[in-house]
């Protein structure tokens, strides 16, 4: 009886989607490492990885293979279970957000509407907050379990940094929510349909430029990317929370950072830059077959994501690292008041326009 109740087609569809998203995330993260080295090389007038394959395109495979075959070392005084749990939790939380991102327009196959979103929950944005706030556990547990002073300092830095910047991030999104009136990511993307409607841009970036700016800065801080990479600051903490890690556990930490970057780029593209919408999509929908329309939407989304990833890399190789007190000052004394003012202005304007 139980087997009859489950909608098997639905289950197969979702499992297929999850598998594809997982593979794409891992693939993009792998090639983001290559991209980062190439971007760094271009900006420093070097060639970058060039030995493995054409343009060094096989470099991620070589790196991954190397990490797999390295000796696995667990420090004698480390808490073994938590030491292994740390990188695993970091990876899981990195991948979790991908479940609620709408990757493309939904389409119909044989009378069945298939949406390219694993779960359309009506608390989408709160789910993102939840996962972001869990992301710090991987760093904290790993850093503590290593039983190393530098790792512990780094994990404490990471925790306080992430708690501080979560606040400004949340308040900047409240202003966005006032305009959208919904928490579901699917609805937010549908509201940004096309590019231009009723005499104004539909994308949220043009309605919430300050909110986007605050969100972007907070995303840098949450990702522990330069200029906010205080937790793994080489010159002070000697690599920080993953100092004691080796082999694939180190690989998971490094890899999850790139997956985080990919997913947060996707979240930013969804919330502020229209997701899979692009100018002239109605014309394409009317003149092209359905599969081409869906494909063009997904392509537009991925172009936006890759543009964000390149922006992350440009910033990393341009700006120097903050000092820790500067980081805290920026978070608490600049971004939070700015986000509050943005929220007030948004509320006032929304009231004035009678939305």
């Amino acid at each position, binding site marked *: 009886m*139980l087997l009859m109740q489950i909608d098997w087609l639905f289950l197969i569809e979702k499992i297929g989607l999850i598998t594809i998203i997982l593979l794409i995330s891992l693939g993009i993260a792998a090639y983001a490492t290559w991209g980062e080295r190439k971007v760094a090389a271009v900006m420093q007038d070097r060639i970058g990885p060039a030995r493995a394959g054409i343009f060094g395109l096989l470099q991620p495979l070589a790196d991954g293979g190397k990490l797999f075959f390295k000796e696995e070392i667990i420090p004698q005084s480390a808490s073994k279970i938590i030491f292994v749990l740390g990188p695993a939790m970091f990876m899981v939380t990195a991948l979790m957000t991908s479940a609620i991102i709408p990757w493309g327009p939904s389409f119909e196959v044989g009378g069945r509407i298939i949406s390219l979103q694993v779960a359309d*929950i*009506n*608390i989408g944005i709160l789910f993102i907050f939840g996962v972001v*706030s869990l992301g710090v556990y991987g760093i904290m547990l790993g850093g503590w379990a290593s039983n190393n002073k530098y790792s*512990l300092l780094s994990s*404490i830095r990471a*925790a306080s940094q992430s708690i501080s910047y979560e606040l400004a991030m949340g308040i900047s999104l409240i202003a966005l929510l006032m305009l959208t009136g919904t*928490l579901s990511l699917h609805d937010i993307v549908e509201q940004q349909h096309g590019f231009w409607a009723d005499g104004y841009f539909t994308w949220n970036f043009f309605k919430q430029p300050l909110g986007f700016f605050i969100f972007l800065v907070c995303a840098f801080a949450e990702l522990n990317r330069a200029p906010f990479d205080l937790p793994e600051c080489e010159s002070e903490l000697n690599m920080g929370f993953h100092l004691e890690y080796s082999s694939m556990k180190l690989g998971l930490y490094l890899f999850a950072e790139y997956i985080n970057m990919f997913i947060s780029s996707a979240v930013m593209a969804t919330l502020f830059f229209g997701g899979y919408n692009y100018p002239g999509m109605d014309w394409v929908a009317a003149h092209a077959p359905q599969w081409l329309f869906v494909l063009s939407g997904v392509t537009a989304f991925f172009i936006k994501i890759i543009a964000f990833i390149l922006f992350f890399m440009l910033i990393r190789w341009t700006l120097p690292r903050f000092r820790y007190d500067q980081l805290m000052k920026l978070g608490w004394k600049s971004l939070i008041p700015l986000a509050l003012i943005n929220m007030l202005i948004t509320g006032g304007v929304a009231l004035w326009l009678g939305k």
Partner: protein
Amino acid sequence: MDLFEILFWILTIGAISSALGVILSRNPINSVICLIATFFAISGHYVLLNAQFLAVVNIIVYAGAIMVLFLFVIMLMNLNADVEPQKSRLVQFAGIISGGILFLVILAALRDSKINGTLEKSANSVGLIENLGKTLFQNYVLPFEISSVLFLSAMIGAMVIGKKEPSNDLPERSPNQN
């Protein structure tokens, strides 16, 4: 036994076993991790009751913020199982007696309460964020606002306590410098 019930039992077993882990493990860090697992299981229960907002807020506030601070403090205190202070007999007896009394009260309350066999599963949508927001801001505006003022005063209080008093060390240092 349908899917709902299977999920219910998995979550219940998870919640109870990890709650036992909180009080039985000697290492405080393990206790915190077990507590986080408990919160996740309880959030799962909320989702089964169709209270998605409550579920996700439970994770954000408890698992995401409060437990991070717990871990933070425990890591800084550097507690180990062998350094744990041995409590005196008197404290142990007081603990047993007060715990036993609490258990008795709960048992008495449970004995009188009736458990309705049927639970409205996904039919009620009270827990969805839209209805919750409307209820909160239409029927219960005043208590809501008053509680937010309470939070504000707690925040200001924390700031006042945490603020250093500048007049203490400045006069002492100035003669040395001259």
